[in-house]
C-alpha cells in the first residue's frame, strides 16, 4: 500500500540524527568550513550513533540490523541538513562497508568488516571520480589487469575523501572495459596520495587526488571475488545517498531563507509578505518535497533488490538541479546578506553546486 510514513524505528533514528545535526553540526559548521578541519570529537560522537556499523552482520561484529537504502536516505538527509562536509566525513567508511557487506566474498567480510564495528571511527574510502573532462563511471580510465595472480591498477583518481587517513580504499577501475571494485590497503606500493584538494565547497572535507602507479594487489581483493560486483547497484546507491544529501542541504537553505524572509522588514512589512519572495519559498518547499519522494521511491526499489537505475538517475539528476535552484534562491532571498559569510546560505550554495560532481562520494 502506498505510504509515505517512515516506520517507528526509522522515525526514532531520524529524531536522533536530527538532534545530533542540530546540537553538534550546526554549532561548528561555519568554523569547519573556514578552517578546513572537523574536530575528531564530533566524528567519534557521530560514529557512536552506530549509523553505519549497526547494519553489519553479527558474525562480523555488528548488530545485524537491516541494511536499508530508505533508512540510509533518511539519515543522509538529516545529517546533510546539519552540514554536508561532516556528513560525508562521518559516512565515508560506508563507501567501503556497504559494498563489502552487500557484494563482498565471505573472506572479504571477515577480513574487513569487524574493524568498523569498534567504538572508534575508522576511516575508509572509495575512489571513483577521475580528474578529466568527460568522466564516465561506466568507462573508467583507471584500469585493473590480472597479471601473475594479482591485479595491477593504473590510473588517477580525484575527490577521494579522507584518502590520506583511510586504512582501506575501494578503487573502481575498468577490467576488460567493465567497472569493478578493488580493495587497496593503506601503504600498498604504487598507491600515492597527493595534495589535499581545494574545492569551492565542502571545504571541511579532506579530499585528495590519488595515483595508482602499477599498484599490485592480491587477486582476492577484487570486490566480490570471481563474481565481481554489481556496479550498477553501487552507482544507484551512490545516487540515492547523494540525492538524499541534496534534499538535506536544500531543506536547510529553504528553512533559513523562509525564517529570514519573515523577519526582514522592507517597506513596512516582512519581505515574505511579498509574492515575489513568497512564491520563491513556495517553489522551494514543493521541489524539496518532490525530490525527497522521488528519492524514496528509488531507495525503495533498491531495498526490494529491483532494478532501480531509471528511478535513481531521475531522482539524482532532479536533485542536482533542485539543490542548486533552492540554495541559489536562498541566497537571493537574503540579498546582499546572503552573499556574506556571516549567513550560511552562501556555504549551502557552494556545497549544493557540487552534487552534480560528487558521483561516488557517498553511499547508502
Amino acid at each position: 500500500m502506498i505510504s509515505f510514513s517512515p516506520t517507528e524505528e526509522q522515525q526514532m533514528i531520524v529524531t536522533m540524527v536530527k538532534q545530533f545535526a542540530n546540537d553538534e553540526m550546526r554549532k561548528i559548521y561555519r568554523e569547519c568550513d573556514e578552517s578546513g578541519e572537523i574536530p575528531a570529537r564530533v566524528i567519534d560522537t557521530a560514529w557512536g550513533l552506530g549509523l553505519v556499523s549497526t547494519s553489519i552482520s553479527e558474525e562480523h561484529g555488528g548488530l545485524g540490523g537491516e541494511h536499508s537504502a530508505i533508512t540510509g536516505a533518511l539519515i543522509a538527509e538529516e545529517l546533510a541538513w546539519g552540514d554536508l562536509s561532516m556528513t560525508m566525513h562521518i559516512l565515508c567508511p560506508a563507501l567501503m562497508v556497504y559494498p563489502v557487506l552487500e557484494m563482498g566474498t565471505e573472506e572479504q567480510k571477515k577480513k574487513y568488516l569487524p574493524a568498523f564495528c569498534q567504538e572508534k571511527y575508522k576511516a575508509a574510502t572509495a575512489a571513483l571520480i577521475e580528474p578529466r573532462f568527460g568522466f564516465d563511471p561506466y568507462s573508467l580510465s583507471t584500469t585493473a589487469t590480472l597479471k601473475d595472480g594479482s591485479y595491477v591498477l593504473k590510473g588517477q583518481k580525484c575527490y577521494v575523501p579522507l584518502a590520506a587517513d583511510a586504512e582501506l580504499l575501494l578503487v573502481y577501475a575498468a577490467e576488460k572495459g567493465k567497472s569493478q571494485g578493488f580493495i587497496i590497503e593503506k601503504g600498498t606500493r604504487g598507491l600515492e596520495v597527493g595534495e589535499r584538494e581545494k574545492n569551492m565547497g565542502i571545504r571541511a572535507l579532506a579530499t585528495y587526488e590519488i595515483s595508482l602507479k602499477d599498484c599490485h594487489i592480491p587477486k582476492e581483493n577484487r570486490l566480490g571475488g570471481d563474481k565481481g560486483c554489481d556496479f550498477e547497484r553501487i552507482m544507484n546507491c551512490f545516487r540515492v545517498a547523494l540525492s538524499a544529501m541534496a534534499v538535506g542541504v536544500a531543506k536547510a537553505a529553504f528553512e533559513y531563507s523562509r525564517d529570514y524572509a519573515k523577519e526582514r522588514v522592507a517597506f513596512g512589512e516582512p519581505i515574505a509578505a511579498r509574492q515575489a519572495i513568497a512564491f520563491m519559498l513556495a517553489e522551494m518547499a514543493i521541489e524539496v518535497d518532490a525530490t525527497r519522494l522521488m528519492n524514496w521511491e528509488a531507495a525503495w526499489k533498491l531495498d526490494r533488490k529491483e532494478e532501480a537505475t531509471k528511478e535513481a538517475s531521475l531522482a539524482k539528476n532532479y536533485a542536482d538541479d533542485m539543490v542548486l535552484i533552492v540554495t541559489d534562491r536562498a541566497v537571493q532571498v537574503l540579498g546582499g546578506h546572503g552573499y556574506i559569510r556571516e549567513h550560511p546560505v552562501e556555504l549551502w550554495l557552494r556545497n549544493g553546486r557540487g552534487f552534480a560532481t560528487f558521483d561516488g562520494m557517498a553511499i547508502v
Partner: protein
Amino acid sequence: MIDFELTPEQKEAVEAAHKIAEELFRPISRYYDEHEHESPKELIDTLWAKRQEGGSFGGLDMTAALRTEEICWGDAGLYLCSPSPGLGGAAVFASGTPEQLQRFLGNYNEGGPKWGAMAMTEAGCGSDTSAITTTAVRDGDEWVLNGEKIFVTYGKKAIVDSKGFVVVWATVDKSAGRAGMKPFVVPAGTPGARVEKMEKKLGIRASDTVTIVFDNCRIPFENILGSPEVRKIDKSGTAGFKKAMATFDVTRPLIAAQALGVGRAALDFVKEALEKEGIEIHYGLPRHKLTALERDIMDMEANYKAAKLLMLRAFSLMAQMLPNSLEASMAKAKAGLAVTKITQKAVEIMGPLGYSRKYLLEKWMRDGKINDIFEGTGQINMLVVARRVLDYSREQLK
C-alpha cells in the same frame, strides 16, 4: 512503512480504467474535440451503466485518483463528461447533512445519467471567491438566488441534460465578506436557473463549460449546505468558508491526477515514437553524455514522477484523516506545471507529428493546460503553499 506498491485492488482498478480509456475514450477522442458542444451520448450511457454495475470511477480517494489518471490518459475532455456527482458532489460530501447526502446523491445509483456541477466563478471574480456577488435571500421557507455564474464545468449536463444539480456559491450577507458566502444546491429543473452560454475553449472541448443565470431562482430552505448563520469567528474567515475551501483538499489532488493522465499520454506517445525509431534513453549515463533529447525526456519523466508522488502523498494523508491542504496545493501546483511543460515539450520533440491534428499530441497540449488553471490557478495554489509554509494568514500574504 514507506511503500510505493499499489494494493491489488488499486492495480486492478488501474488496469480496468486503462482498458476503458483505451477502448472507449481514445477512439472517439478526436471526433469530440472537433465537434465541440456535441454530447458523447453513447459513451455517457456506457459509463452510466458501468457505474450502476459498481464499476464506477467516482469516489474521492487514492484509488479514484489512480483511475482518474488512467481515464484522462484516454481523454481529459471526455473524462469531464463522465456522469457522476462530481465537484458538486464533493461539496455535498464536505458539508452536507446525512439527509442532504441522501436527498442529493441518493439518485446517483438509479435512473438516467446525472452530473453534479459546481458554480463558483463569476465574471468579476475568479480566484477571489470572497468577492462573489450572487445573492441568496431568505424568503420564508425558501432561498431566492440572483446572479450570474460563469465557467461552470458540465453545468449544462448537470441541470439541462440530466436530473442532476449544481452547487452555487452565493452570499447571504455581502458586508460579511467570506463569512457570508454559502453553498446552495440547485436541482435540475428549478425555475429561474438557466444555462446561457457554452464557452468555446482551447482544450477539453468535449466538456461543456457554461454560464448559468439565476433569476429569482427559488430553492427550499433545506438546500443550503452547512449552517445558514453568518459567524465572524476571526478575520481570516469562518468555519463555513473553511469548509468550502476544504472541498479543495480533495478536488485539487484529483485535478493533479487528471493532469498526470494527460502528461503521461504525451510521454507515452513520445516514448513509443522513439522506440519505433530505435532510440533508447540511457538513464544511467552521466549528464554530459546524455543527448539533448535524453535530457528532455528524463526531465519530463522526472516532472511527471514528482507531481505524481506529491499527488499520492496528498491522498495518503487524507486516508489517514490528517490535514492535507498544503500537500493538496503542492500537488496541484506541481501537476499543472508538469503537464504544461511535458505536453509542450512533447509537441516540440515530435515536430510536425506533434503539431498535426492527425495525432492527438497537440490536443493533449491544449487539454493539459486547463489543469494549470481550474480549481485554482497554479499561482493561487502557490499562494496557498506559501501561506502554509510561512504560517501566514490571507491578510499577511495577499
